[in-house]
């Protein structure tokens, strides 16, 4: 019980800290976003008026409190570039990024576990070398280059999909998922290679332990030992990795969205950094940060379930 209380307190503290840091950072930067929104030839009075309207001229603490209060009501301010509430700008983009990320994680899981378990049977030194080379090659490909290769091979040469032909999810969910499969694959392949290696070394390490020999001498077959005994122990580092990986998948989708011209959070983030639309940038950053923190929190709790000895 004490463990959970402590964890939840840390969670809220971290969330608060991230909000504070993001707010401070975007507050102290040089370059006035109101000036940029109105153009360089705008009069000083107009700029001051817009700053007053958006509450940019309020004292630091006061505006931080009202910002946090707004966030709790689902209000992240007003976009300088679109002149609309930030939430409205983000709303349509969010499902694209989330769908891609979920698909990517799904692909990673269904590819990594079978491959990891199968390759753990490789013991020959030459096989080891080939495995390492193959595995590391996949890890070395940045996800956006993987996206370009996939577009070239499956899109342009084999014509399995038409590059740039994204179908909005609210028009045709099936068609949309079919298209999103490819960006998700581009994100998933390098991460799968990492996970395969982790699963493989985990299993190989566990197989040398005494309890495996005992289980074997009791007449259990290899499959049963793997599923019932070994996997459970080999899972611990895998779960830690999962927390980190979800952050990486989200980050990966920021870049990959551009390759497949998806109208997601990533493309929005990049274009708004260019347009210096700080309220939107800040909101997307916070959104991703919160997702990462909350997932890590869940991972920590799962960790405890798998290994009761852990005292995080």
């Amino acid at each position, binding site marked *: 019980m004490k463990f959970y209380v402590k964890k939840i307190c840390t969670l809220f503290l971290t969330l608060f800290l991230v909000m504070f840091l993001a707010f401070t950072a975007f507050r102290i930067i040089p370059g006035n976003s109101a000036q940029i929104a109105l153009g360089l030839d705008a009069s000083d009075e107009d700029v001051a008026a817009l700053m007053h309207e958006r509450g940019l001229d309020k004292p630091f603490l006061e505006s931080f409190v009202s910002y946090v209060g707004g966030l709790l009501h689902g209000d992240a301010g007003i976009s300088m570039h679109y002149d609309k509430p930030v939430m409205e700008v983000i709303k349509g983009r969010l499902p694209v990024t989330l769908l891609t990320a979920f698909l990517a994680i799904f692909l990673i899981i269904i590819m990594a576990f079978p491959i990891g378990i199968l390759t753990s049977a490789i013991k020959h030194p030459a096989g080891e*070398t080939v495995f390492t080379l193959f595995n590391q090659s996949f890890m070395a*490909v940045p996800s956006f*280059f993987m996206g*370009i*290769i996939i577009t070239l091979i499956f899109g342009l040469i084999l014509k399995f999909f038409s590059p740039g032909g994204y179908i909005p999810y609210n028009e045709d969910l099936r068609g949309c998922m079919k298209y999103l499969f490819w960006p998700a694959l581009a994100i998933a392949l390098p991460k799968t290679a990492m996970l395969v290696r982790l699963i493989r070394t985990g299993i190989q390490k566990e197989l040398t332990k005494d309890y495996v020999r005992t289980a074997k001498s009791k007449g259990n077959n290899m499959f049963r030992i793997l599923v019932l005994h070994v996997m459970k122990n080999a899972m611990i580092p895998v779960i830690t990795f999962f*927390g980190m990986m979800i*952050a990486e998948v*989200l980050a990966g989708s920021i870049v990959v969205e551009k*390759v497949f011209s998806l109208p997601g959070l990533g493309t929005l983030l*990049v274009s708004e950094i260019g347009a210096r639309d700080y309220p939107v940038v800040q909101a997307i950053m916070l959104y991703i940060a919160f997702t990462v923190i909350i997932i890590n929190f869940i991972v920590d709790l799962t960790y405890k379930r798998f290994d009761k000895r852990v005292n995080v």
Partner: protein
Amino acid sequence: MSKEKKTTFIIGLVLVGFVLLFVLAGFIHTPYNPNTMAASLKFAKPSLSHPFGCDNMGRDVLSRVMKGASTTFIIGMSTVLIGLVIGTIIGSITGYFGGIVDEILMRLNDTLASFPSILMALVFVALFGTGKYKIIIALGVIFIPSFARIARSEYIVQKNLDYVSNARLIGASNFRNIFVHILPNTRKIMLSSFTIGFNNAVLAEAGMSYMALGVQPPTASLGRMLAESQVYLFRAPWMALAPGLTIVITVLGVSLIGNSLK
């Protein structure tokens, strides 16, 4: 080193050597001027005079890759050096002394470490703008926590070993213990984290340049070449493959070396 580790180490060394040769040659001489355009050479296929072909403006892709790879190498090396030096200093001191400062720094570290480096770099770019030196500083600062964490855990193990207590008995100061006695013993783990950091820096830089938020033209950059190549992917795939494979070979080579050092 086991036999298979030796093999992968040598393969890694060859790959990195190959890229390094390109980079070093690019400093002195490139076959063509990387920025000279020629209408007659638009989308020229790879040939003997242009091994990697020409791009949409008739520029020689090989020359551009050589310049771009050197930018990537410089950024990767400088950022990792910043992270390594500052991170090791912070990690060694907090790990050696422990206490409340150590506790606070490490909590902060954990939070920072859970964010993907490219996202952090984008925050920096949003705040301070783009450009080669800003990218170096941004990525360098971002890598400090990971190095600090590794150095710290190594120092926590080492500081309780006999040789450190012996040195203390002889009268070695804390400063001497940290930098003269313990530091050399962390070289193996720091070297292998150096390779991981370098790869992360290369990938982050390439991703940012790809999104046009990294180094700005006229500085050549592999990521930007990839972004420009995409429109002509079917017509001139070599425009994408040459810079892309250069990144892959660099990262693969370095990670094979780092992997064998573990």
